[in-house]
């Protein structure tokens, strides 16, 4: 689990979870895209409460392990200025068979979006804006159930 201002290495995230008994690694890579809400995006600035973010990632891994005990996950999130096309978050899940790896990976990104204390400021042509969504209480079972549902569809 990591929060870093350095560029992310997806292969390293995958290598962190894969073992000899695994037949699959699923990865999710979140990118900075060049448009949002009708605006042309120039770059994003990510800010984190890093120690709490890492603890949150550990909580997400623990939740995932209850459902997919054979599918360990790793989450690396980048902070600071990230250009269009660059990676802001990389997640990997490994498992003996692909289904669990895909599901655990999907669950992890859903939960990161719900509860990780990470904020992004969008810099677009003509200004900047903090992008905010709903804050889910990390102990909120309803949010967790929703993430499980998305992971299993």
């Amino acid at each position: 689990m990591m929060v870093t201002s350095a560029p992310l290495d997806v292969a390293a995230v995958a290598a962190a979870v894969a073992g000899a008994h695994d037949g699959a690694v699923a990865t999710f890579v979140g990118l900075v895209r060049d448009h949002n809400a009708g605006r042309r995006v120039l770059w994003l600035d990510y800010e984190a409460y890093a120690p709490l973010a890492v603890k949150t990632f550990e909580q997400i891994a623990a939740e995932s392990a209850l459902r997919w005990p054979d599918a360990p996950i790793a989450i690396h999130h980048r902070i600071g200025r990230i250009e269009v096309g660059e990676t802001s978050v990389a997640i990997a899940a490994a498992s003996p068979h692909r289904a669990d790896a895909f599901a655990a990976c999907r669950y992890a990104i859903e939960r990161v979006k719900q509860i990780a204390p990470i904020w992004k400021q969008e810099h677009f042509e003509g200004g900047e804006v903090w992008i905010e969504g709903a804050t889910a209480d990390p102990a909120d079972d309803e949010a967790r159930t929703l993430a499980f549902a998305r992971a299993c569809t």
Partner: protein
Amino acid sequence: MHVTIRLFARLREVTGASDLTRSIPDGSTAGDAWQALVAEFPPLADHTRSISVAVNEEYAKPATTLRDGDEVAFLPPVSGGCEANERSE
């Protein structure tokens, strides 16, 4: 007693500082610390209903009692997680 206050994103921009040290009465809660901060920076009042609280790097409640030397963080809503954001991605 003294506590360290951590602020992020919009809240940091309102106060102009990511770290503040403030003296508050013994027995104060995290919510009391927030109200003291609002008194000092009135524009923060707009955020009272949307923030989350962490004490010493763990999520906490506004009713959590603070102790001398604690770090209390006020967190604006996180950057993803609502349906509208997810559909747009």
